[in-house]
């Protein structure tokens, strides 16, 4: 008797019958006040230390930001900056100097920062041809590059607005009358250099039109080695962004005076953009950004506050 009992029970509990009879074993979590308080305390317990560590990392980064697009325009031209920048006969050299506020350990990264520059505009992002970048002149039908597709009936390589608007300010750094060498290699993503830009593709018919958008490219260097272009073509997410220019492999001591000789070539004046030069060290988390650390601390501390409030409520008016 008991054997048949067990037999039928096993049949009844078979996986299929549990499924169809809606009696799958389940855990039924019930969110009691104790669980709520414990969860908030746990979150606070984890988040506040992580936030403090993250903040420390962010504060350990030394960052120097210098805006130069206004200061580098000579006095007589400040009224009409656009015609200044578009006039090739005016020399565009400029110097600025700054003091290093804290000890900066190598490698020190040099970025140029542009603001009010919408690299994430739909027509702009669309305006490139990855096929052409990889395979060169053999590619046809690159209408996505309009209007920078052909010039004088000959194709432009690399085509598209993104390449046409290449940033072309240059910077050299002098410290104590000795030039600081800037490493301009390996500034683009390795995957881009090796797989997205062709080793046999050379610039052709580039920036030959009437309207110059940005820098020119050396036609003897293949695209996979044109790292400035590669860095520039990785369009950024927000209207205010930084792109890597190069690296200084030496340490900078505190109160060092660094003089920057730059060529103010790039036209951001037509649309009210800003240009800034950034020198920054790096931490395990990245650049100087307090946001993550502050967010962690804020959420951790609000969790703890909520937990305390709930504990008081629980003690003062417990439910049955």
């Amino acid at each position, binding site marked *: 008797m008991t054997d048949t009992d067990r037999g039928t029970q096993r049949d009844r509990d078979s996986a299929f019958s549990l499924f169809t009879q809606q009696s799958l074993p389940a855990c039924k979590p019930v969110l009691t006040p104790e669980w709520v308080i414990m969860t908030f305390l746990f979150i606070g317990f984890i988040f506040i230390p*992580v936030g403090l560590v993250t903040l420390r990392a962010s504060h350990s980064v030394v960052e120097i930001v210098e805006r130069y697009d206004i200061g580098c325009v000579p006095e007589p031209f400040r009224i009409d900056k656009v015609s200044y920048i578009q006039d090739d006969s005016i020399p565009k050299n400029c110097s600025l100097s700054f003091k290093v506020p804290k000890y900066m350990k190598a490698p020190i990264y040099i970025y140029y920062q542009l603001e009010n520059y*919408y690299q994430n505009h739909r027509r702009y992002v669309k305006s490139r041809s990855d096929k052409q970048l990889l395979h060169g002149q053999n590619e046809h039908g690159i209408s996505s590059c309009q209007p920078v597709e052909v010039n004088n009936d000959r194709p432009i390589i690399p085509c598209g607005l993104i390449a046409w608007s290449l940033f072309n300010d240059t910077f050299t750094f002098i410290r104590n009358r000795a030039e600081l060498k800037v490493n301009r290699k390996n500034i683009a993503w390795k995957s881009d250099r090796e797989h997205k830009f062709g080793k046999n593709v050379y610039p052709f018919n580039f920036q030959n039109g009437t309207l110059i958008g940005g820098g020119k490219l050396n036609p003897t260097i293949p695209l996979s080695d044109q790292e400035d272009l590669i860095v520039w073509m990785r*369009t950024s997410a927000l209207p205010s962004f930084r792109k890597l220019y190069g690296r200084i492999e030496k340490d900078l001591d505190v109160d060092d005076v660094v003089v920057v000789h730059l060529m103010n070539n790039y036209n951001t004046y037509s649309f009210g953009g800003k240009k800034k030069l950034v020198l920054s060290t790096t931490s395990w988390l990245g650049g100087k950004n307090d946001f*993550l650390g502050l967010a962690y601390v804020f959420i951790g501390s609000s969790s703890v506050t909520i937990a305390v409030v709930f504990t008081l409520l629980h003690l003062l008016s417990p439910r049955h």
Partner: protein
Amino acid sequence: MKQFIISSETDAIREVEERGDQTEIARFMKEEVKKQLKQFLDEAPQYFCSPSGPKLALVIDGKCLMYALEPSLRIMLLTLSLNCSSVVCCRVSPLQKAQVTSLVKKGARKITLSIGDGANDVSMIQAAHIGIGISGLEGMQAVMASDFAIAQFRFLEDLLLVHGRWSYIRLCKVVMYFFYKNLAFTLTQFWFTFGTGFSGQRFYDDWFQSLYNVIFTALPVVIVGLFDQDISSSLSKKYPELYKEGVRNMFFNRRVVAIWACFAVYQSLVFFYFVSLSSSTSRDSDGKMFGLWDVSTMAFTCVVVTVNLRLLMMCNSITRWHYISVGGSIIVWFVFIFIYSGIMTRFDRNDNMFWVIYVLMSTSYFYVTLLLVPVAALLGDFLYLGVQRWFFPYDYQIVQESHKDDADSINKPDSQETKEHLTPDEARSNEISQLPKEVSKHSGFAFDSPGYESFFATQFGKYVPPKAWDVARRASMKSKSKPK
């Protein structure tokens, strides 16, 4: 119980019938019915005044019903019936069954359910909102015409209180969750448009958007729709008042929808701003900055993880299928993005997704953000759920909490230890559940038949205590047969 009886077997009516004049019979019966209806309708209100008064019942037979359903008397019949706790119509034809059902359906404007087992019930089953057929002795016509089919009449209780209620809750959850997850996902793109000069640049890659609802968030919600149980089946039957939650539409009204929408907006703000503000200066170990597609992949990962975890938060019962589907969806996302950004074909569009995830995952920024963003997004929901359950609980939540320490013996009705605590009814159903299940589903007995039970039970040596009404019936049968 106060019974109002409208019968055609009264002496007055029989007298008129014996006279044989059809028109006069018709007229007289109509007058009678009208008189009685009026009389009962006047009597009924006095029973309402006292809350402890007897319940009202109306009994009407087929012939009288024919006159009562005429347009002039229909309203009175409806009003009287709605005031009664139960109405018994005997000796009615199938057409009349359907007519009564339609009367209540249209007149009272409530949801009607009809249940029947024979071919004569088909019109009634089809006239009601929900028709239930009992498969059995009288054939399958009722089943074929019905919306639901059950095997025995007593399963109706399960159908309504357990499965009907669960179905309502599951439907509300699935629909709300679907709107919520799409709202959170789409609004994140919406906040991006403010930063693109309103040019309409997409934030996410095309494939992410297409596959979001198909692969990355589809299966968990199906599992919830199939398996979510707020309270177990035995508790559902123990507290039938919980059924009112469905009647009052407490889980899908404007307030609930507005709250979900608000949290979706809040979460989308967290997704977009936390990710984009923190990635503006983040970089990989060699100083290279992130571009548009890197930021959007980061945001999308956060969206997928958060939305799946939110599903777990809103479940009342979590089976292992939930874990499998939620974990599986997140893993499928990672597998997909590994493959997608690892290959490059000639047919690629100009979005630069190549190698994005590998670079992202090599930064510690990715992991720090992946811990922060889902928790920040879900914190609001969690707080709301906790506060709602603590200070403004729904009825089912109260039931859940008071019974949360019950042993999980619901799934195993044959546990020997609890035998002593069972009532006689439960003991009976215990014994019966231990009988071998019949292979054929058309066992034929619409109502619990003592004959069926005791026959099969004795075969297996089980003792089934007889029901009181069965004993009385057998005794009366014996006494009836005696004089012969």
